[in-house]
């Protein structure tokens, strides 16, 4: 039995403790915005916030996050989180997505970055955004993060 608070809702689930959080979210909770890309924590398509920290859900066991607060793209898209709202608006303004498969994980990673560092320098963006985009939309991802940071700096 694992207990999680996912997007503000507390749930208890009968899952094996070694089941990765990714599959708990996708299969047991039907939260399919969090994507499977590599299974080894390399691509970041499954990035979610665990107690506010961006983690690769494919490489985090359910048991290890028992009692934790999880935010997924669905939770961030709800409109209640000002940073997430700015990041999503910036992703839209810069027309970042191509295939779109990396987008949920990228947005979650960007939200974590901007919550931690309101005005990240380029090197901080490089260090934080280790998610992979196979379509090569990186230039627009950078622009979107800068745009969201600028929007967040406005009085």
């Amino acid at each position, binding site marked *: 039995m694992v207990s999680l608070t996912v997007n503000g809702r507390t749930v208890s689930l009968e899952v094996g403790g070694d089941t990765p959080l990714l599959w708990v979210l996708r299969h047991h909770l039907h939260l399919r915005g969090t994507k*499977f890309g590599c299974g080894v924590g*390399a691509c970041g398509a499954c990035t979610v916030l665990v107690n506010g920290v961006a983690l690769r859900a494919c490489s985090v066991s359910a048991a290890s996050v028992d009692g934790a607060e999880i935010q997924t793209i669905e939770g961030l898209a709800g409109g209640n989180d000002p940073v997430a709202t700015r990041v999503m608006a910036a992703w*839209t303004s810069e027309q970042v997505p191509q*295939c*779109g*498969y990396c987008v949920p994980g990228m947005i979650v990673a960007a939200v974590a970055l901007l919550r931690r560092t309101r005005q990240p320098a380029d090197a901080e963006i490089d*260090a934080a955004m280790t998610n992979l*985009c196979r379509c*090569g*939309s990186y230039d627009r991802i950078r622009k979107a993060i800068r745009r969201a940071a600028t929007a967040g700096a406005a009085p």
Partner: protein
Amino acid sequence: MTTPPAAPPVINLSRRAVLAGSGALVLGVHLPGWGVGEAAAAVGANTLIPVNAWLKISATAVSVVCPASEMGQGVFTALAQLVAEELDIDWRIVRAEMAPFDAAYANPILGGMRSGGATSIRAWFLPMRRAGAAARLMLKAAAAEVWRVAPDSLVLETGLIRHPPSAREASYGALAQVASRQAVPAEPPLRDPARWTLIGQPVPRLDVPDKVAGRALFGMDVLVPGQLYAAIRHCPVYGGTLARLDDSALKMGGGSYPPGVVSVVTLKDAVAVVAEDWWLARSALARVAVAWAEGANAGQNSAAIDSALARALDPKDPRAVATVVNRGDVDRAIAGSARSIDAVYRLPFLAHAALEPLNATASVTARGCELWLPTQDQGQYPRLLAEALGIRPDKVRVNTTYVGGSFGRRFEADVGLEAALLSKAVGRPVQLIWTREEDIRHDVYRPASISRVTLGLDVLGRITGWRHRVAAPSILGRVAPGALRDGVDKTATQGVADQPYPLPALRLDYVRQETGIPVGFWRSVGHGSNGFVVESMIDEAAAALGRDPWRFRRDLLAEKAPRALRVLDLAAAKAGWTTPLPPIARARRGRGIALHEAYGSVIAAVVEVTVFFDGRVGLDRVVAALDCGQMVNPDIVSGQVAGGLLFGLGAALTGRVGFERGRALQSNFHDYKILTLAEAPPVEVHLVASAEPPGGVSEAGVPPAAPALTNAIFAATGKRLRALPVAAADLSGA
């Protein structure tokens, strides 16, 4: 972002409309020249019955039914723009949806319902506009019928049909059903390009809101009632088969499988576990032991492949050489030249590594087979599934999800067929998901190749003759042997004879060298490989003559290739080609330029690099200029080109799949590295206004990327890289 063209607000159904709105109605539009009969004939006698629905109109929305898969290339938006342009509707109510499989949606260039080869705009530029224009006339005819007035007395504006003499009006939605019964105009007049308000506009992509919110439905997000999940392990060697299976370690005391594990299913070359959830299936699969009959390719390795390819360059090698082009007397031209350059170039196998691993969901019942998957080739499934399942092709339904990247990989039917066989085996719908490891180890790779080029230059530095031999395994030989012409696989040699530089004498030979490694279409196909070879050779010629690489290319093109010259000059100007790069401590810097023409588009790219004394290569900046003819959506074009350039640069830097004992050595993103954000340089894409017919853009960025990079490395270090990836070369030094 630019906002959509200004338009009045959505007009609701008028009270004076004769007909009440009745929800979304399908408006059948038979495409002239692509009618039911022709479409059916093009794909064979057993084709599904076409529905001919290109548009759905309601009182509040217009949905364009797209015949091409949305794989990231922006095709939903661009094709919807084409239809909407002719319809007089408010762009803000336009939606796009994927067409179900139907022969009527066959791509006119590719033949069959498929998307690829940067063909979507070229193929659909006219048909989609005709669909919109025909619909407009049919709506007009519907109003004329209902109101019993002359069609000429009607006015259409922004989703509304008015009859000014009687002050009647109705929305398109209200008239859609009547319109769908009208005769389809054979040659509907198209709007004068001077009056276009949507074509050429950077309207925001229709798929972005769902993708940003995590709502977009990809293949793995499909959930049908009763669905099970499968994990699969293939024979590690291509062509091998399953010999023995031992699932005793999976079984519990009583000999049954653990709770949730439904079945262990054997396929010819694979074993799969079907379970209530995928993690359970994958975990159970790890406990299944398998012995493989590895077959003929079990001894294959990279060194042997490289040797076999190299032997194919030997003029005395007895293997069949297919001559693709033999124009002028090349041997004489080179022998009589003031200077000749001879070089051998090698390229590795590459994996597609789309971010969404291969997957498909299938439901096989007594009624037939239904498939849901991210694919770029729907058209192949009715026949293939009919053969595999022993059913009629018209019992196959194919539904396409958003595609999480493809780059050529999802032309293949492997995962879709496997899902269907698994569903048949267990009698329930099955979603099959390959692991990333299976995805990379069982790819159909970009062919490894070797090329030898000899070119002659006259005293003025002009090319007198170009002798070129390519040896590579054949893509068409595997997927469409009938498409080989006189032993030539055109995908292996494209980009050589059609390079923009004038070649008075050219001999282009192809040697098909199979390796036991399956090869397939990989973004830009032969253009990517041969673009690297050609643009490296041009750079070698400039260097041999001590000429500036940009000016040397300019002089070669002269007035014979104005489109190419224009993008070459634009890229050089925007990059500040003539301004030296500021130095960086403990590093060398350089700029490289490359030019390529393909898909009806021509592109030039300048790459700036820093090569550190320790050999690391930093990508500093990319500047590209593109002439792709008429553009439907310039913002999508620039995103595609920027993406293609980075796709090509990443592959050039680190991309390589090697083989030992018939097995792929790479398996995931730790050892098959793709470009990261930290490595990605800023990319500028400059678009040339052009009245040429629309060209393809989704592949255009790839071919110039690798040569612009290696030419920049040469400029920085004096080292000419004749083999990729760059990471395999030692670039250390001061």
